[in-house]
């Protein structure tokens, strides 16, 4: 009934299909597990159902091959990508690479200042998008019913924003934050621009998460005359926490991958930033610069890409750990 159930059913469906349970039903299951040749013998035995069984078995087998093949292809592409990047970049990777500044336009040296800038930009983006996005999601999920005009307009504009190319955000951020608000090329301007870009995605995912919290909890809370604030902070938000975290992780992923929006806003100065008002070069910008503008920069680009992938995995893992930790803490009280 709840959205959660629905998601789970979806998730187990391919497995069911692969085993042929979805198609053949319980009575046909055992023969379907018999190897192909033996199933044929069954048919020779003259049992009328054996022919049918054999056909169902073949269809199952085909479905299994298609499903497994598709999954294998996806895994294979990912492995290939990782191997290609690692092959070219691993040689450059070391602790010194992570801490020293780049030299000779990035052909040698490390990525220390770039890593710091990246984390600062990411921090600004995440803090501001959670600060704005979480209340917005609460508004959409709890205080605007699906039909009301205000909710509909906010939702529609978010969907448009979510599909906007990032370069448009770059131009917008440059015009608003860098020029109008006088932040110039700075980490702050870059982070805020990224926040604008991540917000639509984060808000919609957080809203979905809040909506998926069973209505029974809201009814129970109302019947116990818990105030809306208590209901929200003690029951709804903890229950929606995994969805909020998932939204945040997707947002982080999008922000880390961003190049176009940052070139116009946080700039590409590769010095160590002294404050949020300094310009800073993000990892993705660094990779773009090395592979496009610097001849002989491919090794550095691949090593930086490896660091970027590692950073992404670490942030994902960290968020997942924090979520379980916080949940366990809140649920015990």
């Amino acid at each position, binding site marked *: 009934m709840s959205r959660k159930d629905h998601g789970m059913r979806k998730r187990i469906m391919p497995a069911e299909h692969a085993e042929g349970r979805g198609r053949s039903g319980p009575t046909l299951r055992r023969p379907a597990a018999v190897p192909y040749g033996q199933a044929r013998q069954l048919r020779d035995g003259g049992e009328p159902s054996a022919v049918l069984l054999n056909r169902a078995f073949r269809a199952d087998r085909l479905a299994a091959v298609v499903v497994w093949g598709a999954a294998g292809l996806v895994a294979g592409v990912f492995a290939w990508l990782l191997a290609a990047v690692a092959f070219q970049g691993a040689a450059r990777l070391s602790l010194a690479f992570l801490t020293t500044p780049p030299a000779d336009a990035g052909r040698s040296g490390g990525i220390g200042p770039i890593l710091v800038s990246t984390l600062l930009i990411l921090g600004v983006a995440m803090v501001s998008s959670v600060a704005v996005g979480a209340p917005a999601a609460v508004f959409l999920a709890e205080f605007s019913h699906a039909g009301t005009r205000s909710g509909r307009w906010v939702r529609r504009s978010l969907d448009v924003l979510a599909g906007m190319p990032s370069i448009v955000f770059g131009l917008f951020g440059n015009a608003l934050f860098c020029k109008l608000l006088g932040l110039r090329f700075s980490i702050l301007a870059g982070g805020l621009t990224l926040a604008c870009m991540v917000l639509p995605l984060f808000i919609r995912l957080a809203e979905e998460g809040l909506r998926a919290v069973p209505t029974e909890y809201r009814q*129970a809370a109302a019947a116990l005359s818990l*105030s809306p604030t208590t209901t929200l902070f003690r029951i709804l938000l903890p229950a929606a926490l995994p969805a909020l975290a998932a939204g945040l992780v997707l947002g982080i992923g999008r922000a880390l991958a961003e190049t176009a929006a940052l070139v116009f806003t946080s700039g590409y100065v590769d010095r160590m930033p002294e404050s949020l008002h300094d310009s800073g070069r993000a990892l993705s910008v660094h990779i773009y610069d090395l592979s496009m503008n610097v001849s002989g920069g491919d090794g550095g680009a691949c090593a930086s890409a490896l660091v970027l992938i590692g950073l992404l995995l670490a942030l994902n893992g960290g968020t997942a750990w924090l979520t379980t930790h916080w949940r366990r803490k809140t649920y015990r009280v």
Partner: protein
Amino acid sequence: MNPSPLIQAEGLRISYGGRLALRDVTFGVAAGRITALVGPSGCGKTSFLNCLNRLTDLIPGCRVEGSLRLDETDLLDPRLDLLAHRRRVGMIFQRPNPFPISIRANLDLPLREHGCAREERPLRIEACLRDVGLWEEVRDRLDAPALALSGGQQQRLCFARALSLQPEVLLLDEPCSALDPLSTGVIEELILRLRGRYTLVVVTHNLAQARRLADAAALFWLRDGAGCLVEHGPASHVFDAPREPETRDYLRGYRG
């Protein structure tokens, strides 16, 4: 028997988005008794129940007209203090709905919300759990998640949670329909124990249960696409000597 009922509905009409769901209900609920609301699905029993603690406010497009009073309080007054009112009127739902937190926190949260002192809360929690016969079963695992309890235990936890706020009226919306016969028996005993201390209004589809529990009964029916009240009175009259043909048919298991 009881001249002035605790809850009195006069010409109560409920509609959802302009569609009439329950028409012109006039009837009273006596204090300290168990009143059973019976009738086929979709005839407005739960809607009526939800009016009593204004849970109807949560449903967009729901409109309630007529008059509904609890003691001297006008329950349909838009300025009614809902938080205070819902403390007076507790509710148990069809499906057990403990919060996805620990057993202790399920009881602690409403108590703290309503200003119960920190030292007093553990005592109140224990008293409520004893009241519903759950204390011996959970005393060693108060910090276990409430959702790890069995369905019957969860429902009793919901009873304890509702009782912890010391309400006057307890609304029960098919409290046993999601439970097995044994748990149902335990809940029924509990309901009978609460008789006298609380005013109970029970919606049920189980006629045998209504006979076992109720002091008074009301039969709701569906006429021209909207629910209405067909017959009400002491349980013995309604169940053993029904006046209306619908009641007779319903009690014998015929469709109207």
